[in-house]
């Protein structure tokens, strides 16, 4: 069982990458763990590559260095896949969640599945469009992440989401998270967890 779990989230400005890391940290906090979330920082600019980090730990977290060896990677924008070095530091047991409705082979990422512990695709933008009316994929991706890793429970993600976005917006995001969770859960149920 892990003591520290490190997640790195990639996306573009405007996609809620930073919020995703924050929500994940709140979800872990709600489960009684220590969590730390922070972005790489840049000027506010929609469309620019953004990276955010989340560390989850049983013990108080002291280090503040960027996460160089993530246990999990969440890719919110597949257009980054061949443009920047997203996968730096992800080890052979690392897991990757990619936001896409296409298959890995279509994206030219077949060897990825072999390099890492587990790689799943989640049509998060589509789920978001369905549930929120906007292609804001972060909540859905967190739902998928929860299903894939079990590091946080779906309910914790949903509570974090609802607290952050009150009312209907929160509910819809929570629903998107649940939908993604179900998808990934169904896909991995037969696979032994690493």
């Amino acid at each position: 069982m892990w003591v520290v779990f490190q997640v790195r989230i990639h996306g573009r400005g405007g996609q809620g990458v930073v919020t995703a890391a924050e929500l994940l940290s709140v979800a872990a906090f709600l489960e009684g763990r220590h969590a730390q979330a922070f972005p790489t920082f840049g000027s506010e600019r929609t469309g620019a590559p953004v990276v955010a980090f989340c560390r989850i730990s049983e013990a108080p977290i002291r280090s503040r260095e960027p996460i160089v060896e993530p246990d999990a990677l969440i890719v919110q924008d597949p257009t980054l896949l061949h443009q920047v070095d997203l996968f730096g530091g992800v080890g052979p047991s690392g897991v990757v969640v990619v936001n896409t409705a296409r298959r890995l082979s279509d994206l030219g990422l077949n060897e990825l599945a072999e390099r890492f512990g587990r790689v799943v695709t989640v049509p998060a933008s589509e789920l978001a469009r369905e549930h929120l009316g906007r292609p804001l994929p972060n909540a859905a991706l967190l739902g998928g992440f929860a299903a894939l890793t079990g590091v946080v429970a779906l309910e914790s993600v949903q509570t974090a989401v609802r607290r952050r976005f009150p009312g209907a917006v929160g509910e819809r995001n929570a629903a998107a998270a649940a939908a993604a969770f179900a998808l990934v859960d169904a896909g991995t149920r037969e696979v032994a967890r690493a």
Partner: protein
Amino acid sequence: MREQIEGSLAVARAVALCRPEVISAYPISPQTHIVEALSDLVRMRELAPCEYLLVESEFAAMSAAIGASAAGARAYTATASQGLLYMAEALYNASGLGLPIVMTVANRAIGAPINIWNDHSDAMSQRDCGWVQLYAESNQEAVDLHLQAFRLAEELSLPVMVCMDGFVLTHAFEPVDLPAQSEVDAFLPPFEPRQVLDPGEPVTIGAMVGPEAFTEVRYLAHAKQMQALDLIPDVAAAFARAFGRPSGGLLRRYRTEDADTIVVALGSVLGTIEEVVDELREQGVRAGALGIKSFRPYPLEEVRAALGHAERVVVVEKAFAVGIGGIVGQNVRLALSGAAPEVFDVVAGLGGRPVTKRSLHALLADVIGGRLNPHRLVFLDLDRQLVERELARLSGERRSGPHAENILRDVGVVGGRSY
């Protein structure tokens, strides 16, 4: 109550708990979330009575705080980097007049070249402006230090700046325990000014003082800071009693008692350093860390007491004195003059470059292995090739172009490996 929130929001709520009556705010990255949150609290009347001034510059922000404080109100503002410089004249004015203003500095590098990321060059540039300067290691400590700062400032009649690393702390989500209003009210009584503009008892504040008395007035400013060396631990102790956790004070020792090698630093990098210390200890290396919480006044005796027994002291600082060397390093050397330890000055994390455990381990291995010259300033993770290329350019042609642009082109930031 314990919550997982952004550092800026935590600080804003801590400040609000201290019941400031006037807040003046000019936005600058990375302090913006603090002043935005305070604006919300005032607008929603969660913080009342409080006047929130949308001033036109940092110079105006500090000036308004000066006017407000002189009129007897508890006054607060926040800034960083260029903003701190822009109010430099007013900083000296506030401390010279003995006004107990509290200010958050979200530490950020000073340009040129313009850089919005964290280092300590801003606060360090104002280390002698007469303000008390405290450094927070975590968002919890940032919260706690603001509470202590108001009390300290008002007891001393001296302004206090609370430094917290920009972005690294301000924009980090981590657990923070925010006290209840009643607890803060018990710890921080209403402001009772030593001097105040009151038509019932008119006073003249800010008169010119000539050669016949200026030295004495300035001596008093120094004496007040010396007083703070006693008061800071007192306030920290009172805080610990009231809120049940240690926070602030002059220094924080981490495994230094039997350490041969002690790393000295300020602010959030201490967290990373402590993990490195633990890892070294597991390898049998007797390492320790010393966090300096109060940089002004500087606790010379306490630093000497904490470090005097070590074989080597490695100062890791996020700023430096151009043309001479380290800043914190200089002060540490002063504290240790005549004492045994070898002191190494290391500059790290400038302009937001992450200070990584890997680099720290390599650094300490070099130090312990005797491969570093203690008389030379060390720049951690310096890309020598980049520097040498630029120097070659300089000697090659007169119109060599701006350094920053040349180096950025060399680094190939756009479309390159770095994400």
